[in-house]
């Protein structure tokens, strides 16, 4: 049973439950009311309504699972930084589960804080930026399946969103717009410079990222996550395309803006970068979105290069997928805490002069492999 069938079952059961009421009402009430309620019941039982509600429920479940993973990621982030930097990390809130509840507590605290808007800020942009940022990041998560059975599909055959990988990458690139908007609308020099830096950084690292993904699409011959993962049944793509894998990871680090590439929010020179003026839950959204994007990045790397949910069947597929994503994220964290921050011009130089040629080389390797008939 896949997620679609599961959700369809639930929705069907619910609709049946409620339709009893509608039809009963339709029987009891006079004709002009009764027809209306019978019509409501017929609409509820129609295929289009059922599949729409199913997809809605599916997305809610997927987003919820993703957000729980994001909480895990934040917890891992704090725990690993504690291990590396000689402190405990979260400890007391949720003592028995290793301080896991600390993030919830922080979230509640941020919710209760006052939202402060600078007087001279552009109110609409200031308000919209976090929404666009968090929304576009959640969009990425909605199309990434955790297994063949757990993903957003539109019919019972398990056919996932066509070109889901392409959609994920496209959603990944909306963020610079939100960041630029946040930086500009805050009306602050630090945020402006941070926003500019962020836009420059994301645009220059987007290209090698997508080129590496393109080589994967080339080998797999599809934009669909299921097909891509299926194509890695014999050999995971990071083996033939190791260069591409490394370039992809580096670009991901730049895209999610963590050290060494956290220049837009380099706290030493730009205070908090483009998030300087944000407080309360709006800041919390930005903070959470960083974790969401880290999770999305780890999931993308897993699906495209690390064989997705493939692994010995002792453990369920979904858990395999998550384990791999967590490992990718742990590597990110390990890197983050052990290197200094790079400078913006050096970073752009790295992106354009090193990573882009490597990505093109990787695309060439993929083309050779494909034409050679190995894939």
């Amino acid at each position, binding site marked *: 049973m896949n997620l679609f069938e599961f959700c369809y079952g639930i929705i069907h059961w619910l609709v049946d439950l409620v339709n009893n009421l509608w039809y009963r009402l339709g029987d009891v009430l006079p004709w002009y009311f009764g027809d209306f309620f019978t019509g409501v019941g017929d609409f509820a039982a129609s295929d289009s309504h059922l599949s729409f509600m199913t997809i809605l429920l599916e997305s809610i479940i997927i987003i919820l699972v993703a957000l729980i993973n994001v909480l895990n990621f934040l917890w891992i982030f704090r725990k690993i*930084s504690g291990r*590396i*930097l*000689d*402190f405990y990390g979260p400890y007391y809130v949720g003592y028995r589960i290793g301080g896991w509840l600390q993030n919830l507590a922080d979230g509640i605290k941020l919710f209760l804080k006052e939202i402060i808007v600078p007087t001279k800020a552009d109110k609409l942009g200031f308000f919209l930026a976090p929404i666009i940022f968090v929304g576009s990041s959640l969009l990425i998560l909605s199309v990434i399946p955790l297994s063949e059975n757990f993903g957003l599909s539109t019919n019972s055959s398990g056919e996932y969103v066509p070109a889901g990988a392409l959609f994920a990458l496209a959603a990944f690139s909306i963020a610079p717009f939100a960041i630029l908007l946040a930086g500009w609308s805050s009306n602050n*020099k*630090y945020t402006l*410079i941070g926003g*500019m830096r962020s836009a420059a950084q994301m645009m220059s690292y987007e290209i090698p990222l997508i080129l590496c993904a393109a080589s994967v699409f080339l080998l797999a011959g599809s934009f669909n996550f299921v097909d891509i993962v299926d194509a890695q049944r014999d050999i995971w793509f990071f083996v033939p395309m190791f260069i591409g894998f490394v370039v992809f990871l580096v670009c991901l680090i730049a895209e999610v803006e963590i*050290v*060494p590439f*956290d*220049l837009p929010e*380099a*706290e*030493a*020179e730009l*205070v908090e970068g483009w998030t300087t003026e944000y407080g309360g839950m709006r800041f919390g959204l930005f903070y959470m979105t960083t974790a969401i994007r880290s999770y999305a990045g780890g999931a993308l790397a897993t699906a495209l290069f690390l064989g997705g949910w493939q692994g010995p069947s002792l453990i369920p597929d979904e858990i395999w997928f998550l384990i791999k994503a967590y490992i990718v994220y742990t590597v990110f964290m390990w890197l983050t*805490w*052990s*290197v*200094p*921050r*790079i*400078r*913006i*011009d*050096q970073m752009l130089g790295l992106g354009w002069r090193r990573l882009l040629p490597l990505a093109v080389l990787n695309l060439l390797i993929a083309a050779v492999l494909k034409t050679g008939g190995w894939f």
Partner: protein
Amino acid sequence: MAEMWINMGPQHPMTHGLWNLRVKVDGETIVDAEPEVGYLHRGIEKICEGLTYPQIIPIADRLCYGSSFTWSHLYCLTAEDLMDVEVPERAEYIRVMAIEMQRIASHLMWLAAYAGDLGLSVGFTNAMRDREVFIDLLQGLAGSRLTYNYPRIGGVAHDLPPNFERDALRTVRYMEQRLKEYEDLFDNSKIFMMRNVGIGILRKEDGIDLGVTGPSLRASGASYDLRKDMPYSVYPEIDFNVATHKDGDCYARYRVRMDEMWECCSIIRQALKKMPKGKWRVVAPRNAPASTGLGRVEDPRGEAVMYVVGDGSDKPYRLKIRSPIFVTLSAAPKILVGYKLADVVVIMGGLDMCLGENDR
């Protein structure tokens, strides 16, 4: 982007204190800079005119939170020069040892702040942890953690605590291991080198002309070290090298401080070994003659000088303090211009700011 002024400070993560650096940027390139100081001015020179000579020692401690021992030591040297007090040799060795411990602690705090500026959090926490070891040692010696109030006019407050020598040697041995680790962490990091090599170059002539002293000048190739050039205390009897570097960039400043920490370890060992038995304090006169006294020491940040004028009473008539970082900061615009905005952090971090002594 048009040119604009950016205020980095008074409350900004870069400043490590309370001061304001106004930088004029063209895009991200600095075209002009202007430090503004004085936010922490407490009028210590004026306060000292109302206190008796021994009462000034704790005030002198408050000049710099990073290296308070050198300042109280400097004050005692100055007052001894004014009053013609001969300090027992044991006290001199104890002071030299403690100053070098303080120098390591100060340099470690600098290293921590510098790593934090560069975004290298692991360097920050590790250096802070190792600084704590030396703070503990000095706490065992003097009784408090940051402001020691340990030297006296005519010696030190009390003798070494029991087993201090053993603890100190153990700490120094530990520190030498850790220093190797730091050099692995920093020098082997490609990004660290990218951020440091060739950034913030201060030429030797400019440095001397602008009055820059201490590690910042020695990194430019001038081997000016008061401990060698004009020795005070018992430094002539101790064998050590002056750490210099010829490049004058941020990496050179980092390198000089690291080398200095190695030298400090060696000086502490020698001081412990050569320390004679005997008295550790003589009683200083209550009133100073109507004369002047001058003390100069090599602070972790440069050349620290105090000039005291006595008028025959038990209070100084005038006390002037020369803060090394105050003069070094005036050279900052010269170093900053032409580099990127992100380099401000590295360059100013490399100068090792301490606002307590800067603003006095």
